[in-house]
């Protein structure tokens, strides 16, 4: 029953999305008020239908309905309940249903929060979102229906969820990531509507800003969770591989970061309009490109979802339609949104322009590296692009970016007189470099990249606090100072400090981590970076849905026992899969990471073992938390609310 019901609801959602794409848009151009006003109810129905459909699938997993192919392939009666829940989005079909559900979530949010947009634009924005949703849901219905039955010969038990996905990180990573990916559809829809109406003013930018920041923050946290998950779950101790699926999420992130900054200029200065529009369109296009790369299986990646060329073709076609029409619209209509360029080289405008140029360059570098294997294949060569390419050139635009980030926020719009800033900037630079030299000296070995990375981190961090102080210099008390800051300022500072915490973490962990693959027997001890790892015991475990061999390592420092680490090698019964479960002691300045390779002899007492001492690993993700939450703070700035109430009263007055 629930499968059919879920399926009907998907069909209903499809019909609603078709209506939403056509009716309000048509109504808004023909002056048909009734049709124009269908936008909101249609959006609500769309959301409710998808939510109910999603609940049907969750229910199917809950009751182990193996007559549904998707459930049979990705669940098992032995699977713990919490993983039955996350198994709903553990593979292609279900995760795409979640994707569309999240899309509808953004749509209903726009429908509810954006009530005070001009009535016509409101309907058109929802209609554009409806078109995108229509593309997604036809993909779901026609190529990836999660409710397909296995009748009449259904299996007695399911073939289990991939053990890698039986994990807390995987419960929250996809939803957050998708909220980021799909969230950029909102700024896309705003830009398209602006282009259709031939108007893109600072007011439009102000409407778009909180949505973009929200999507960006979700994406930031989603990427962070993915990296953290890869680190502890894949058992290699790496946190970023420049894998196509990572790049797929990193591309819209880079482009989205440029967009956020460009939107700030359009909002405050009513300029950079073309840039902002182009970035809005390209950010969402990159989201779609990422979807294509991951879900078509054209690239070999750690989590290629599928090898079905039909799905690839469908997304590619959809991508072509979206990018093509967006580009066409941009080329024909963007001429109407002229900007007068009016600023000096030394101004906030200029620095934000450079920010945009650098982020776009970085996007291009990553895009090229990601797509190169596909291009090469067309010419009959099989190439792969790995970390060496990205590590060689990606840091270049980043170094310039961080150097500018220490100055940009301090400058005035339009033009700035440097004379007052020269002295403080010089002292900040001297302090930053001196402290970095001291830190590298304390760490022992000297590396130029560490010095550069730390200096830039401190440069930006100190300058950020200097900026806060400068903004609140007329308030005497700390409470008064804090009160006088806007949420935008707090969010921005948090994000900027976050990104340099991540930067510091990246350089420190890249250069000071010690990683060893060893052959160890029970009773043997190995020393690494001042820690002694003693392989104490090998034990067999039996759990709900897997068996495991657990090896206990005692960790000593200066002859004192600190704690035990217990990595496991698991064998999942239903899917007959082997899994490496690392054990990690996380710390502020270092992580101790132990993972098992394989048993090397018949006694089971000799193992290949991976022991890592990862310096400052947590900082990489801690910084991302600061960025993400900085975004969540900034999006609630009064600035965006004020606009709404003012606009609302205007509409009331007009009526």
């Amino acid at each position, binding site marked *: 029953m629930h499968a059919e019901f879920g399926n009907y609801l998907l069909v209903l959602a499809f019909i609603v999305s078709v209506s939403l794409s056509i009716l309000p848009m048509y109504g808004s151009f023909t002056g048909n008020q009734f049709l124009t006003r269908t936008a909101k109810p249609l959006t609500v129905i769309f959301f409710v239908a998808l939510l109910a459909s999603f609940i049907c699938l969750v229910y199917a997993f809950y009751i182990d309905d193996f007559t549904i192919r998707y459930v049979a392939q990705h669940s098992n009666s032995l699977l713990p309940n919490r993983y039955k829940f996350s198994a709903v989005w553990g593979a292609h079909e279900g995760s795409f249903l979640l994707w569309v559900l999240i899309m509808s979530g953004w749509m209903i949010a726009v429908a509810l929060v954006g009530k005070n947009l001009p009535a016509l634009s409101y309907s058109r924005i929802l209609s554009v979102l409806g078109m995108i949703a229509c593309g997604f849901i036809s993909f779901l219905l026609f190529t990836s229906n999660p409710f397909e039955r296995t009748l009449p010969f259904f299996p007695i038990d399911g073939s289990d969820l991939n053990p890698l996905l039986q994990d807390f990180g995987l419960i929250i990573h996809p939803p957050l990531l998708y909220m980021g990916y799909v969230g950029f559809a909102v700024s896309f829809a705003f830009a398209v509507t602006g282009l259709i109406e031939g108007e893109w003013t600072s007011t439009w930018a102000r409407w778009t800003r909180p949505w973009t920041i929200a999507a960006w923050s979700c994406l930031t946290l989603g990427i962070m969770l993915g990296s953290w998950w890869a680190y502890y779950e894949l058992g290699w101790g790496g946190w970023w591989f420049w894998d196509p699926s990572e790049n797929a999420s990193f591309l819209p992130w880079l482009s989205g970061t440029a967009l956020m900054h460009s939107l700030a200029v359009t909002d405050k200065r009513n300029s950079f309009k073309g840039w902002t529009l182009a970035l809005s369109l390209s950010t969402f296009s990159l989201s779609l490109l990422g979807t294509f790369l991951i879900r078509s299986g054209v690239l070999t990646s750690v989590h290629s979802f599928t*090898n079905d060329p039909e799905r690839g073709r469908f997304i590619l076609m959809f991508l072509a339609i979206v990018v093509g029409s967006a580009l066409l619209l941009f080329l024909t209509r963007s001429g109407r949104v002229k900007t007068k360029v009016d600023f000096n080289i030394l101004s906030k405008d200029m620095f934000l322009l450079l920010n945009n140029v650098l982020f776009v360059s970085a996007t291009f570098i990553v895009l090229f590296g990601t797509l190169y294997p596909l291009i090469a294949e067309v010419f009959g060569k099989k190439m792969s692009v790995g970390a060496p390419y990205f590590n060689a050139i990606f840091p270049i635009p980043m170094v310039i970016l961080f150097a500018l980030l220490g100055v940009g926020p301090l400058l005035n719009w339009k033009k700035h007189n440097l004379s007052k800033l020269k002295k403080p900037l010089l002292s900040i630079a001297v302090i930053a470099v001196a402290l970095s030299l001291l830190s590298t000296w304390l760490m022992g070995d000297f590396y130029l990249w560490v010095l550069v990375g730390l200096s830039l981190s401190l440069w930006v961090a100190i300058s950020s606090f200097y900026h806060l102080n400068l903004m609140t210099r007329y308030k005497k008390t700390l409470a008064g100072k804090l009160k006088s800051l806007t949420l935008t300022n707090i969010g921005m500072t948090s994000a900027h400090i976050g990104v340099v915490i991540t930067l510091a973490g990246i350089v420190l962990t890249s250069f000071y981590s010690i990683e060893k693959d060893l*052959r160890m027997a029970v009773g043997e001890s190995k020393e690494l970076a001042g820690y002694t790892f003693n392989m104490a015991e090998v034990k067999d475990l039996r759990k709900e849905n897997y068996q495991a061999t657990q090896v206990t390592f005692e960790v000593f420092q200066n002859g004192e026992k600190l704690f035990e680490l217990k990595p496991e090698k698991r064998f999942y019964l239903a899917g007959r899969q082997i899994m490496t479960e690392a054990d990690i002691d996380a710390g502020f300045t270092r992580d101790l990471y132990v993972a098992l390779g394989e048993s*090397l002899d018949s006694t089971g007492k000799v193992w290949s073992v991976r022991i890592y001492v990862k310096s400052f690993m947590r900082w990489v993700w801690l910084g991302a938390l600061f960025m993400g939450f900085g975004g969540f703070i900034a999006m609630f700035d009064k600035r965006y609310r004020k606009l709404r109430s003012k606009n609302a009263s205007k509409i009331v007055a007009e009526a």
Partner: protein
Amino acid sequence: MMAMKPHRKKRLLAIVFGVLAVGAVVGLVLYASSQKMNLFVTPTEVQAGAAPTDRIIRIGGLVKEGSVVRSETSLRTDFIVTDRVAEISVTYDKIMPDLFREGQGVVAMGQLNEQGIFVANNILAKHDEEYKAPEVLDALERAGHPVDRSDKKAEGK
């Protein structure tokens, strides 16, 4: 140039700057891509001497049955990768991925040494026993073995 109005001059500056920036980025990308990309070669191509020895490449194929030799004292593993036409010896001294098996597909990254032995610094882990990397299928196909690519079991992992 003397008569150039300030805003014209700014525009010119912007254009010059833009061209320089684009040039720099394209130049960097082209340089890095010529230096840092890893060519994929099959055992047959290695045997024919078509594989570069001065840089890191990727090879793929099947791990030959009965060819895996493990050291008694270290992590070193020697094995043979075959595309059923040619064979190539591979040596690796780190932890093998869980799904490394005789008779299964494998993709290795590394360099050929003077003795023609492939010194791997990374063996790619595949998360699914049913899943064969496109490279492996390709190597087999190029060596003249038709491969059934419609392996639907690879889905969704």
